[in-house]
């Protein structure tokens, strides 16, 4: 994926998304405009139905905007072919979902390795997968299947899978929603560490105060519109408490 000017990874201009079900039109996003730069640790918050997941899906090229313009890493997503969008997801984006969405028939290592295989990486693939698991403290669970792990462990495997291919941007949709306090803290610590040490940009959709505490920037959506966009002054431990 091409480098972006000014380090801007995401540029949304008056983005609108309307879902049509039967004869009912639901406005999930109404003219959202924002810019997200490389290295951010950003939380998109808001009540249920405010458009958080929709925004993440649009940024992740999983869905198409109805109106407006959305550039991800310098490319207008609307003009990209299905194949180009898949390539962007494969090589530049990582995803973490609330329901973990690991492949139940594969072990933790295979789940992580799968992404590398899709990228066509054959050299040191196993080692890289194990390194990613090690970063998340899961090396000893490498040969376990998701059903043999706790929710927190599964979500960490999902993060390992998301970062194994060294993406520039990780989109995490309610990653801590199913985790208890301790597991949520461990997960967020690890993602924060990856952000700080490796410069991976994280965008969370959440209404979890624990995640908001870690974020350096918080965009609040209400009824599909940006209500507030707050950049915190410092990334301090105080925020996480």
């Amino acid at each position, binding site marked *: 994926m091409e480098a972006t000017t000014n380090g801007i990874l995401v540029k949304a201009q008056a983005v609108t998304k309307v879902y049509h079900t039967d004869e009912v039109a639901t406005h*999930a996003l109404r003219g959202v405009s924002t810019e997200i730069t490389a290295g951010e640790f950003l939380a998109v918050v808001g009540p*249920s*139905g*405010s*458009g*958080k*997941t*929709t925004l*993440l*899906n649009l940024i*992740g090229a*999983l*869905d198409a905007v109805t109106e407006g313009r959305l550039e991800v890493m310098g490319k207008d997503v609307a003009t990209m072919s*299905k*194949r180009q969008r*898949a*390539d*962007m*997801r*494969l*090589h530049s*984006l990582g*995803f973490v*979902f*609330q*329901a973990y*969405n690991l*492949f*139940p*028939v*594969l072990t933790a290592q*295979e789940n992580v*390795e*799968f*992404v590398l*295989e*899709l*990228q066509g990486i054959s050299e040191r693939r196993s080692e890289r997968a194990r390194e990613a698991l090690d970063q998340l403290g899961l090396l000893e669970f490498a040969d376990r299947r998701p059903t043999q792990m706790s929710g927190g462990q599964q979500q960490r495997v999902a993060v390992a*899978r998301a970062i194994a291919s060294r993406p520039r941007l990780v989109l995490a*949709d*309610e990653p801590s*929603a199913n985790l208890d306090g301790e597991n949520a803290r461990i997960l967020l610590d690890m993602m924060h560490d990856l952000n700080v040490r490796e410069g991976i940009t994280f965008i969370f*959709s959440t209404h979890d105060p624990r995640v908001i505490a870690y974020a350096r920037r918080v965009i609040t959506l209400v009824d599909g519109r940006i209500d507030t966009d707050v950049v915190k002054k410092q990334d301090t431990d105080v925020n996480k408490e």
Partner: protein
Amino acid sequence: MPGTIALKYAARSMTRHTRRTILSMVGTGVGCAMALVTLSWMGGATEMQVRAVAESGAGHLRMVHQDWPDTQEPTLRLVDWERALAAVQALPNMNKYTMRAHATGLLAFGNRTAPAQITGVTPERELTSNRILQRGALEGRYLEKDERGAVVVGRTLARRLDVQIDDALYATLSGKDDIHSAMLYIVGILDTGSEDLDLGICHITLKDIEDITGIPGVGEISILLDDEQYMKAAETRLAANLPPDNTVITWREVHPALAANVDSDTAFMRLMAGIVILVVALGIMSAQLTAVLERRAEFAMLSALGMKSRQIISMVMIEAVIIGLGGAMVALVVGGSCAYYLATRGMDLTSFMDDDLGFADVLFDPHLYGSFGAWLVSYALIIAMATTICATLYPAWKAAQVMPADALRTTG
């Protein structure tokens, strides 16, 4: 080409619902087994009919005068038959041959008469190549080489003329330009079990028919090959070495009605096999579609990870290939066993044949034996694989069309 993890994913996905996977394999296998048995039956029936026609006198191939196919004139004789015979004898995969000449005439005994087609034969060749003689019950004896004044008639003809062994028949035959007559002594009465067939049997030696009709030579050379599969090559080779004004025809041209019957039987059995396979395919499609819909979130995740539609389709198709392979194994065991039984024990069709095994000068077997051979392995694989792959194309396409945003939507 899917990678090792993708292959593992596909293979292990088969173990999620083991019972469904096994049922899919068994369903595919049983359906394909039915198709195999149908094909075995069809192959056996076709082979049996062709063999019956060929061995009842038509041969796989027949060399005749070039006008015969259009006119069916019995007095037509081969041009330079000795050269034609040499070409037949040089034919690879030629099993047996026999020479005949025909004439139409009237047989009389006392005040009884019957029209007949009299066939001049070479007895030693006719006995070894004609199943009507081999399988029929002969009262008296058959003709001897170059025997003069002797005739063998069928039981029905004998009954119509009210003749017995050693009775003298007065035969009036149409010759080249004239009518010719001769006295023929009955040396044998043949009972094939078919009244129609027995009515048409009237054999004298080739020498006799030449003498009586005044037409020298041979009317036809019927050729039995080792197998019907050599027919096309033999026909081509013979056609290239034919003396002028002769032609080579196949059993299909000798018995067009039977050929049409064989073709319609084959088409019907293929239709039956096709319907069975279609039903199986719809079952597989339904099961695979259910499996795909159950795993929508997974396919959405694969798509979200960047897997291309083609790769998702390939992964689902791998599962189809595994089901197909399992189905082929079941088909081989079930279908192979049934086909083996059909090939070794056969089926007695006597009750369906109304005690009449003869039809249009052909003596059929009362037992049908299925076809059995190495072809079953390739057919089982091809049918099972093709069925499952074709039936999975739509579910695989559906899997590739899953919209990740829709399938993964949780909150927001």
